[in-house]
């Protein structure tokens, strides 16, 4: 079995032999086919589920498979996607960011407030404020060694408080000037793709590169995989954590600003519970909540899956819209339980 095989075949496509003859320097032992398939299913299982759901839905509900509907779903999903992108990075470090929903809302309000001063002000103000909130989260977590769950729980409250203070306890709604460049950012499109979608896609592309192909990305995995080991290897653990929470704040703020641009106003009541949607999407996407493993693409599929479910429930007109959360919750259970068993079977085969 391991006599002739790998010498000519590139290692990536030669999964079979566990071990090669030691006399030959080239071929290296590879992982077994089973574990690779397992890994593939775990990584891309959500994509398969997503495609299946889309396929079935397209047959059953003709209105589902229209371009308009697809556009609607993706625009809707792009805001959560941007938030979930930051959440993925945070969760890979073994942390969690509960503040993103509040920060999202705050970002929207600040953007709408600043929009009369122009396009850049409308982006700059929310990014600075939301980035600062993320920075404070990161400082408290990395420098003061406090639990991410509780720190970001506090900043969830604080960001909501700042938002209320800024809008006369929610009484004031700032409007984005019509036909401004900023409103265009939320509502305009190129070749039928809304700007938010394009921005989300660009961010995911950049996020993927950042995570997989840069030292910063490797450090995220290392910090999440074993914080002690990362410290002993001299990796900048604290700095990485601070950066990742700042990034999460920035992305949530940006998503909020884009949302405000699309709605033409800084709606104060958005974003409640969004952190949990984002976490759901990340977890469904196959990222381990304990950190150290995960992928950006999985999160994207997770977000889309949630959005498609929501859309489907709307398609089934007779159904109470409350069913959406029931189905999402059900999906979450099914996916995480399936992942759990997949991971288990991967280890034992």
């Amino acid at each position, binding site marked *: 079995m391991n006599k002739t095989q790998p010498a000519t075949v590139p290692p990536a496509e030669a999964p079979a032999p566990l071990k090669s003859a030691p006399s030959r320097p080239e071929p290296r032992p590879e992982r077994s086919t089973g574990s690779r398939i397992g890994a593939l299913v775990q990584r891309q299982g959500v994509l398969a589920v997503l495609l299946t759901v889309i396929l079935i839905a397209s047959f059953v509900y003709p209105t589902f498979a229209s371009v308009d509907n697809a556009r609607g779903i993706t625009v809707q999903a792009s805001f959560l996607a941007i938030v979930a992108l930051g959440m993925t990075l945070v969760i890979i470090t073994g942390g969690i960011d509960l503040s993103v929903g509040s920060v999202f809302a705050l970002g929207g309000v600040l953007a709408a407030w600043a929009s009369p001063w122009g396009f850049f002000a409308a982006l700059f103000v929310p990014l600075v404020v939301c980035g600062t909130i993320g920075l404070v989260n990161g400082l408290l977590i990395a420098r003061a060694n406090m639990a991410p769950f509780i720190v970001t729980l*506090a900043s969830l409250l*604080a960001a909501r408080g700042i938002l209320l203070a800024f809008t006369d306890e929610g009484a004031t709604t700032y409007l984005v000037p019509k036909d401004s460049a900023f409103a265009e950012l939320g509502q305009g499109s190129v070749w039928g793709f809304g700007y938010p979608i394009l921005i989300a896609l660009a961010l995911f592309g950049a996020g993927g590169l950042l995570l997989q192909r840069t030292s910063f990305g490797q450090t995220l995995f290392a910090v999440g995989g074993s914080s002690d080991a990362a410290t002993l290897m001299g990796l900048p653990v604290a700095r990485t954590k601070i950066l990742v929470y700042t990034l999460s704040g920035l992305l949530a703020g940006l998503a909020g600003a884009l949302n405000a641009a699309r709605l033409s106003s800084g709606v104060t009541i958005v974003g409640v519970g969004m952190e949990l949607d984002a976490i759901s999407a990340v977890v469904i996407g196959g990222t381990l909540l304990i950190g150290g493993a995960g992928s950006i693409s999985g999160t994207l599929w997770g977000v889309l899956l949630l959005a498609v479910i929501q859309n489907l429930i709307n398609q089934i007109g007779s159904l109470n819209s*409350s069913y959406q959360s029931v189905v*999402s919750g*059900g999906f979450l259970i099914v996916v995480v*339980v399936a992942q*759990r068993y997949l991971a288990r079977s991967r280890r034992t085969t």
Partner: protein
Amino acid sequence: MTTQATLPRPAAKPLARLRDPAWYQEYGVYAAVAVVLLFNALFTEHFMTADNLRTQLVQVAPIVIVALGMALVIGTEGIDLSVGSTMALAAALLPLYLGYGLVPALLIALLAGAVVGAINGTLVSLVGLQPIVATLALFVGGRGLALVMADGQLKQIVNPDILALGTGSFLGIPTVVLIAGVLALAVAFLVQRTTFGRQIVAIGGNRSASALSGLPVKRVLIGVYILCGVMAALAGILATARLTASDPSSLGTLMELSAITAVVVGGTPLNGGSIRVLGTVAGALLMQLLRATLVKHDLPDSTAQIAQAAIIIAAVYVARERRSR
């Protein structure tokens, strides 16, 4: 602000222990409650009146009940995000079964809490999911289910027995407060003096050691989540009774955060192995009194939220000091 008041500068030698962070972890929350009360006695009119204190206690009672269950879960190194949804479920079920009489309706509502808890507990202990993920699913799905059952509508409750739960009193103490108080004592007894309680703490402290010592880890974990679910359901019933209406769309929203806050401010560490029951009650009380104080001084909700955030950070910071020594 009040957070400052809880950290007085040590004046003389006898107060030297105030420099010790461990002291704050141990007694900080009680001291903070005392300081808030003292502040109000001095600077707030009509605060230290029986009427007002009664109102505060009535308002805090459901939070205390949920927080007690949450404290048990956190003691096992878990967390239960689904408590708010469980409250909504109980509230939605209550009017549906009131036709069969008070007791069946109450039992059904409590049973719903037990079922939610059993699902959470099973996912955590048998499937081996992380508590956040396991309870996230029912957090998302539970309220949806409640809304589906209630048809998304608010229902008035006219059953006098139920309403009596919310407004009645015994020996001048509101029934709700009485129930919360009795439960607090019961949970304290459970944690301190029963094998089940000590097993909860041991499992939270070291799960595999407990398993190897023959402790029924899975059973205890499921039991803890069931207890937490039942308590949340009870809180949902009481809150509904006080509201005189079943409102599954908003009842108990953000309750998981209030409960976790109360537990953490009360000095129970999030990483399990220790449960502070009295501290949890004080933690819930502190947040309630603080909010009331700010309201009485015409400070808006925004300030209250920011103040809450500051207190959470302070409480955890103090706990952190202790752990690192």
